[in-house]
């Protein structure tokens, strides 16, 4: 736990019983890294039932989020990355629902099984959200400190005094680089970047183990985006919080992520350390994504790709990417490739690497 947040703010930690004894510690990761798994997602599926057929928005996805890492979840719009994040927070909008799988928090609690008050206790205190449009997620008629105070008040028992809450909010402002005068302002008096930082401050208010950030900078200008991105890195390094960053900007992910997970049409296709994804991507879809990144370094001919994503209601048998894959083989049309570890820490779901296992 961070020094900064604990100063004068011990109450939240006393309430949030995250101090664990060695025996309770969650299992270490299977690939031999001595890292704690904060959140383990096992065979998660999310479906949206429609009259004709169910749309499988997330199909049998498994991955770990380790303590203190920033995991980038990347993919095109509609690939299921936001749905995965919302499922983790149990904030899926009906008719969307979790059709199967487990979301294990700290090796103990299965979030899928929680209901009502139990769920409320976990949200914000253990898993917090930085929403996509920070501009629109703040209440326009409440002052900034009232909103953050509300979140703290609702999730901390025993209740903190007003002075304690004020102290805590000011500490949080310091962490995200907001001036103290922000305390008494209304959201419309803040710039987009400041609003986003208020949302970050709110997300880390209770020192959660995991923060889910859904495209937190997508509506910001590049210079402001860079500052907000630095704030995210800063809280990761200083608080040791794990961050699941949802996005589609490869450049931004390259700057921030420790590991990246690539999704396509509801399926996880590749997971590896960020550098590996960027320099030695294995899955043809990841390769395509990397090649499509425009740069300001060299002027190169545009790389064109044809092909359409299949109708999500009727996924083809076999590999999910077959209709757009330049290297498609006969086996891809029949057998769905499982996500397998081909190299240490590098998992890919592609038949090209069947021989490597």
């Amino acid at each position, binding site marked *: 736990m961070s020094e900064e947040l604990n100063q004068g703010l011990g109450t939240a930690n006393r309430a949030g019983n995250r101090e664990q004894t060695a025996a309770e510690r969650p299992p270490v990761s299977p690939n031999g890294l001595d890292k704690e798994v904060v959140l383990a997602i096992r065979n998660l599926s999310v479906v949206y039932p429609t009259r004709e057929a169910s749309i499988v928005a997330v199909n049998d996805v498994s991955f770990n989020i380790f303590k203190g890492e920033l995991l980038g979840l990347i993919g*095109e719009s509609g690939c299921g990355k936001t749905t995965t994040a919302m499922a983790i927070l149990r904030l899926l909008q009906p008719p969307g629902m979790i059709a199967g799988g487990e979301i294990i928090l700290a090796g103990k609690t299965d979030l899928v099984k929680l209901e009502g008050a139990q769920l409320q206790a976990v949200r914000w205190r253990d898993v917090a959200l930085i929403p996509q449009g920070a501009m629109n997620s703040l209440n326009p008629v409440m002052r900034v400190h009232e909103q953050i105070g509300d979140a703290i008040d609702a999730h901390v028992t025993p209740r903190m005094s007003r002075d304690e809450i004020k102290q805590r909010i000011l500490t949080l402002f310091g962490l995200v680089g907001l001036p103290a005068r922000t305390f008494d302002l209304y959201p419309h008096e803040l710039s987009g970047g400041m609003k986003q930082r208020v949302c970050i401050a709110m997300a880390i208010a209770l020192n959660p183990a995991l923060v889910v950030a859904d495209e937190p900078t997508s509506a910001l200008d*590049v210079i402001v985006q860079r*500052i907000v991105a*630095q704030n995210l890195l800063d809280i990761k390094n200083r608080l040791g919080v794990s961050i699941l960053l949802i996005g589609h900007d490869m*450049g931004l992910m390259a700057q921030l992520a420790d590991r990246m997970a690539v999704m396509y049409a509801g399926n996880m296709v590749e997971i590896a350390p960020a*550098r590996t994804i960027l*320099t030695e991507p294995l899955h043809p879809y990841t390769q395509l*994504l990397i090649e499509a990144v*425009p740069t300001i370094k060299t002027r190169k001919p545009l790389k064109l790709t044809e092909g359409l994503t299949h109708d999500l209601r009727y996924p083809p048998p076999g590999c999910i990417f077959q209709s757009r894959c330049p290297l498609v083989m006969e086996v891809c049309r029949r057998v769905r490739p499982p996500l397998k570890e081909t190299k240490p820490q590098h998992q890919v779901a592609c038949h090209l690497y069947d021989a490597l296992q």
Partner: protein
Amino acid sequence: MSPPLLDIQGATKIYGGGFLERGRRVVALQDFDLIIPDKPARIVTIAGESGSGKSTLANLVLGFTELTTGRIAFEGTDVTKMSRADKKVYRRHVQAVMQDPYAVYNPFYPVRHVYDMVIHNFRLAETKEQADALIESALNIVGLQAKEILNKYPHQLSGGQRQRMMIGRAYLLKPRLIVADEPVSMVDASLRAMILDIMQRLRDQNGISFLYITHDLSTAYQISDDIVVLYQGRIAERGSTTSVIEQPKHPYVRQLMDSIPSPDPDQRWDLQVSLPDDEALRAHVKSGCRFYPRCSFRMDHCLASQPRLYAVAPSHQVACYLYENAAAAEPTGTSDDSAGAAA
């Protein structure tokens, strides 16, 4: 020599300032000059962050809003003084492709409706066969198949398909200029290249110029010939795209370039950047350079008056006093020659 395709001189747009809102004037665009030559066709990028005036410029060129002062001429004719017939030609020759390919369709009609409307309104075809042939050729340009797509509803198409449909619609009218306002910002990475490629092909094969409005300098670098970078309604820097992007001069443009996240893991951001407190930003710079509050090279005389455009290279100009002397050494460049985009 034929007059330039588009000739914008001293364009200024001020919002507000009416009877009820005295004192609340917003200068969205000030003293903007741009020339797009008659031939050959060019892709001209207008870049800037939100609030820089780039969409105001698009609206002005498309005739959605009127200039406060200044002049926009299309093929030599002032657009405010056009006759009805001229205006119709102008409306046909200047087309728009908007940012959000989801919002421009009426969800109740199949997508062929947008094509039918255009053909009907501009009387492009006499018979249904002619109309079908026109639509077919427009769709071929953007790589779509008529029979696969025309009878679908907008929600059945992907974002990339919808955006290509819009470019195809614009092409149907054989325009001379397409104003593309952030055409790829809502399209997925792998389809972005396809849209940009269509723009390049329309320029090279069909002689259509583009006003490419964007905040994304990297795609601008890939496809455009000239670039104008706006900051709070004024030109900060302009010139040939390669010159401006490869050797940015204005402190703002340099900061912008530094903030573009690089996909290279060996080029992680090292230095922290910070913006001054918003209070300082809002402090109205009455005269002088608008970038002053955020500039790390600011000098006293930056506040005295607004810097004019100084030439730093042939077809590369910067509105910054740091380059005052560079311009003096090179007497050919003057502030108000509008060679920037045209040269």
